[in-house]
């Protein structure tokens, strides 16, 4: 099965030397959207790392004066800057701690997916043979699964915890990376410099580690970054369905899950965490897209 998401043509990226890295940074700094994305990512990271210092209250504390006399949550006000939730907890504190959940899952789950995906893709592309085609047939098979449905089935049946969510997301998200690294490894293996290495008697390990893998770094960097956006959205979706990270651990998705039925009377409980999710995913998409434009001009303008 041919998939249009796999890049066509030969890998034209080259190894990221220190000198080229400098150029990449200079090019990156000229793009306002990319810089905005970077600021968004850094902002959320700072919020996540310094949550205990930045949060005005403990995220789990239920305040007596956090609810109206009728027991409804408070809209944003002076004491509670972003309002309170249905249990009278400070929304801002929960959002700051929720940033940890989103970032940790986004980065770790996607990191695992990139590692699995590139191992499958490089093994299949470089060694080929029966093992290689079996691996790629399995990848095709996994791509025919509706990813979210599979993730929902897995997450709903396994009792959800942060690490289960990480594993579930990694299990459904590695396929695209596998396809891309497979195509690139194949085309790299046929390039002249690899043939030259073979002809002077270089071993497999040398070619793989000195030539193939370094050339894949830019691709992994680009798809690793874009994949974090997908992962953040997937985590939020699972938590929104109530099968992701479980309360009382705050996650932006489960804050919305807890309060979704009250969105008409307490819209801030849905839309402020929603905006946080958009900003974080947008940040990774913008940075990833800029990196792709810079590192791989042949893929310009595609998602």
């Amino acid at each position, binding site marked *: *099965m*041919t*998939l*249009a*998401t796999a890049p066509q043509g030969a890998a034209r990226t080259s190894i990221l030397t220190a000198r080229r890295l400098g150029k990449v940074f200079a090019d990156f700094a000229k793009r306002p*959207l990319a810089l905005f994305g970077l600021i968004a990512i850094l902002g959320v990271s700072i919020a996540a790392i310094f949550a205990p210092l930045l949060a005005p209250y403990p995220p789990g504390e239920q305040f007596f004066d956090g609810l109206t006399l009728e027991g409804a949550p408070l809209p944003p006000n002076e004491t509670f800057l972003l309002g309170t939730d249905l249990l009278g907890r400070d929304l801002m504190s929960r959002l700051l701690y929720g940033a940890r959940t989103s970032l940790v899952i986004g980065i770790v789950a996607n990191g695992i997916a990139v590692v699995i995906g590139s191992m499958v893709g490089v093994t299949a592309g470089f060694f080929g043979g029966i093992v290689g085609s079996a691996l790629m047939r*399995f990848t*095709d*098979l*996994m*791509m*025919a*699964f*509706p*990813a*979210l*449905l*599979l993730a*929902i*089935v*897995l997450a*709903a*049946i*396994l009792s959800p915890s942060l690490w289960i969510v990480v594993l579930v997301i990694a299990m459904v998200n590695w396929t695209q990376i596998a396809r891309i690294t497979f195509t690139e490894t194949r085309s790299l293996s046929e390039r002249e410099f690899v043939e030259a290495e073979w002809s002077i008697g270089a071993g497999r390990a040398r070619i793989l580690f000195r030539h193939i893998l370094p050339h894949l770094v830019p691709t992994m960097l680009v798809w690793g970054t874009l994949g974090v*956006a997908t992962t953040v*959205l997937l985590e*939020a*979706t699972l938590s*929104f*369905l109530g099968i992701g990270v479980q309360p009382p651990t705050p996650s932006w*998705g489960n804050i*919305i899950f807890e309060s*979704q039925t009250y*969105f*008409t009377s307490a*819209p801030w409980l*849905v*839309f402020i965490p*929603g905006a946080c*999710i*958009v900003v974080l*995913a*947008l940040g990774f*998409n*913008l940075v990833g*897209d800029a990196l792709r434009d810079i590192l791989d001009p042949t893929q*310009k*303008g*595609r*998602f």
Partner: protein
Amino acid sequence: MAAYLARRLIQAILILFGVSLVTFFLLFVLPADPARQLAGRSATIETVESIRHELGLDRPFHVQYLRYLGALASGDLGRSYQQKTNVSTLIAARLPATLLLMVGAIFCELLIGLTMGIAAALRRGRITDQLLMIVSFVAVSAPQFVVGVLLLYVFAVNLGWFPIGGYGSFAHLVLPALTLGILGAGWYARMMRSSMVDVLRQDYMRTAKAKGLKPGVVLAVHALPNAILPIIAMIGIDIGIFMSGIVVVESVFGWPGIGQLAWQAIQQIDIPIIMGVTLVSACAIIIGNLIADLIAPLIDPRIKLR
């Protein structure tokens, strides 16, 4: 062509076989107990065991799987544990709603995405272009449940233009279709822009202008058809994305499609329905990919069917 289709058909059957095996295996090894779920909390161990035996869940994996596969080969998707109805009947009853939602979503994403992409390409490098591209980035970065609830809040609750959820009329379709379509619209906007920019650079565009055609005619006759065709081929690929989105969107809007059926079945560990919906979704994805691959050479004769 016939040989190609035959090979694709065999591939499709193998993939469906694989999908059924993997799903069945996952549901077998995961710590989910449909018998206990069905018996209820207060049931005795004997009741649970007798239900387990009745459903054949006490058999070894290969026996269960082969029995399922045998039924599947004759088109039987089994019976729902909870609803005591044939799964194929349940899916057939829900499928029209989901297909309607998909058609609506495809319409929305093409209308919004292509318009945005064309407008951006024509204003390339200017502020309109940049704004549209920012919007397209936001569209692909927004979780569907947030978009859905936002649309409900603005257009159903505050403005009262559309019903708050449910099924039955055109007005019910608008918001869920829009929610499902916005993600794709962001995607199409970017692809349409780059395709249009490529076309605008071609020599035949200069020729058309040089022979004195009006700018509107140049655009409508020479630019748009050439730029849109490659994008249309992508619709097939979208089906996979839709299949993933329907669970969330149908649950936000109370849309009675197979997404809701699946979500309910997952919560009740109703294995036959989970299997059935997964297979139907995989079929849809395979058909979508096939359509995309079949259209591609019609648009660009350099692409050969392999």
